[in-house]
């Protein structure tokens, strides 16, 4: 009996040590240590992944619609938005999730108009479920996208209203169960510029969002613009002394708050963007669901500056990025 046990014991002790040597790979940890492995690297932060959605493109892309002028002189902007709910997208390296999209992306396109413009949004629902578009802002009841359910597989509806008030607003699907439709990705940003316009700036949109990939009503990933850790790996390039304007919209579900902390600087904050006087000069604001605002700042010194949720859990699950401030090249004054 004893020899049998000994054989067992030795087998258990030494079997793990016998494995073929492979070419080593290395990766860098959060603390900067370099680690070697004979296997594969599981790295949502540093790996360059071929994600379908391009956060760089989304950041500075504004959709002004097809513009024409009506007889009364009013500007008409027409948009076509197509909803789908069958897309499976790699939202973090190696993690695939069924996203529901407006025009193929999460978030949907950033729609932009000037206060007083007439908007015509041709909504086509190519999904398998019912969807709508609900815009925050001022509009008639029947344009609210709550009771006007648009059926799937080609259902249509045209939303028609005047843009206003000036500010940054979200739009999202408003079909029940609402949380499901929003957390799957049916939301986007709607910017209304004041008639007199805002000062020239390097403008960008950041939608703070998250994904509950295992459906336990807790987010597994957080991000600014969908892809966790993306702007940490691909810093957002900005110019020293140039005015930066960030339209921030918090679309995170399941968590009561989100926030944005800027390193090495403070920003003028305009809640909802409806007022031209900032409410605060700060490096930290806290946003509840669909709270949003405009941040304006300039960097005096070149270099890398972190921005992230100061709810550290969110930043450690992807909502973190870097501004790379460059030294006065191609500055627009």
């Amino acid at each position: 009996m004893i020899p049998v046990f000994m054989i067992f014991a030795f087998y258990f002790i030494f079997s793990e040590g016998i494995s073929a040597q492979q070419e080593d790979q290395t990766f860098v940890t959060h603390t900067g240590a370099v680690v070697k492995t004979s296997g594969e690297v599981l790295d949502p932060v540093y790996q360059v992944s071929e994600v379908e959605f391009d956060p760089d493109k989304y950041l500075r892309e504004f959709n002004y619609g097809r513009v024409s002028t009506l007889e009364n002189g009013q500007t008409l902007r027409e948009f076509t938005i197509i909803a789908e709910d069958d897309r499976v997208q790699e939202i973090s390296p190696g993690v695939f999730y069924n996203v529901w999209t407006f025009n193929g992306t999460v978030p949907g396109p950033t729609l932009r108009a000037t206060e007083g413009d007439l908007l015509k949004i041709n909504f086509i629902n190519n999904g398998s479920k019912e969807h709508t578009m609900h815009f925050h802002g001022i509009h008639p009841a029947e344009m609210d996208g709550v009771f006007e359910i648009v059926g799937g597989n080609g259902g249509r509806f045209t939303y028609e209203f005047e843009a206003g008030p000036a500010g940054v607003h979200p739009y999202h699907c408003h079909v029940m169960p609402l949380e499901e439709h929003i957390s799957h990705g049916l939301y986007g940003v709607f910017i209304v510029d004041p008639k007199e316009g805002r000062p020239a700036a390097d403008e960008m949109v950041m939608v703070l969002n998250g994904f509950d990939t295992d459906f336990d009503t807790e987010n597994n990933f957080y991000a600014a613009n969908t892809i966790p850790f993306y702007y940490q790996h691909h810093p957002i390039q900005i110019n020293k002394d140039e005015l930066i304007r960030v339209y921030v919209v918090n679309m995170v579900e399941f968590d009561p708050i989100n926030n944005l902390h800027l390193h090495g600087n403070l920003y003028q904050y305009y809640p909802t963007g409806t007022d031209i006087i900032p409410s605060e000069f700060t490096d930290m604001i806290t946003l509840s669901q669909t709270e949003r605002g405009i941040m304006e700042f300039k960097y005096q010194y070149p270099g890398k500056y972190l921005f992230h949720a100061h709810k550290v859990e969110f930043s450690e699950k992807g909502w973190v990025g870097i501004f790379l401030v460059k030294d006065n090249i191609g500055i627009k004054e």
Partner: protein
Amino acid sequence: MELDNNKSKVKVVVSGIIPFFFIILMMAYIFGPGAGLLDFGVALPEITIEKVDFIESEIQATIRNTGPIPVEIAMADVNDRIQPSAIEPDRFLERYETALVRIPFEWNEAEPYAIGITVEDGTRFEKQIEAAAPALEPTLDLAIFFAIIGTYVGIIPVMIGLLWLPFIKKINKSKYHFFLALTVGLLLFLGIDSIEEAIEVSKENLADVFNGILLVATVTALSFLGLYYAGEKLLKKSESSRLTKPVAIALMISIGIGLHNFGEGLAIGAAVGIGSIAFSTFLIVGFALHNTTEGIAIAAPMSRERKVIGKLAIMGMIAGSPAIFGAWVGGFVYSPFSSVVFLSIGAGAIFQVIIIILNMIRVECNNNLSSAAVVSGISVGMVVMYLTGILI
């Protein structure tokens, strides 16, 4: 005549084959292409984090694909915070395949941690660790330490128990039967204890896919049957060899107890391995105490033998030394699956020994198991074990 014979042979073969034909037909109907009978819906990935080791600046998780489909590992986290990490040999796991996930992390001793693994569809699997403690490295010093612990828990108590032999030798037949029955009581308790332990380990650490309770039942039954068969052979042989029947029985008891003590060693090694020093001390004291009764169990059937000292020493070793090997395995390479299997084998062995001893008493008592000596012996045995057991 010849023709008839052939004809009936063909009949036999055909009648044996026909049911197979229907089995194939039935399977084709259930599983075959286009069969719509079975629709199990979406097969979901499942992985189990079987073991977590804390080494210098790194947490290592041994994971196994315990679901019905191959999985691809996407990510690791500590306390639900995503960490860059490595997986060896690779991220693709076939069914039941294991991999080692290495998470560089400056962990703090004695703090609790939750280790999470996310697969390609975004599902996260988690294991809670009550208190981080450095993983044991299989050093010679530690091996010697475990050997000493094993000796104190296994060999020495059993040897102490054997010292009751001269006492048992001097008593009359019914008192002797009392002690044999006492052995049965002790063993019965140990058998139940082993099963309980095996089920507990399987519940806490084994993936559902292994179906812990049925695994315990199956291994226990198989080990019982296997050892029963081997035991009967051994007893038959003992009639025609130098090995006497009581010695053969005592040997079987030693083997059964040895397997049980291996399980106890596993428990101690694993407790030291996960760093719960207080718990391991508790186990050591408790096991050491109640293992002295195991010596009585071995000594009782041998009491009518002469020149037993050498044999008893060997049996003491057989019963006691597995505790050492158990401690090594438990401390250095703990695997919930192997410990469930060992504990179940031990339970089967113990039940087999119980049957053998009851047989022995029945033969000696003219087919009567209901004497006061037997009933009180079994009862006292169980009560003694219970009382020493609650010390653990």
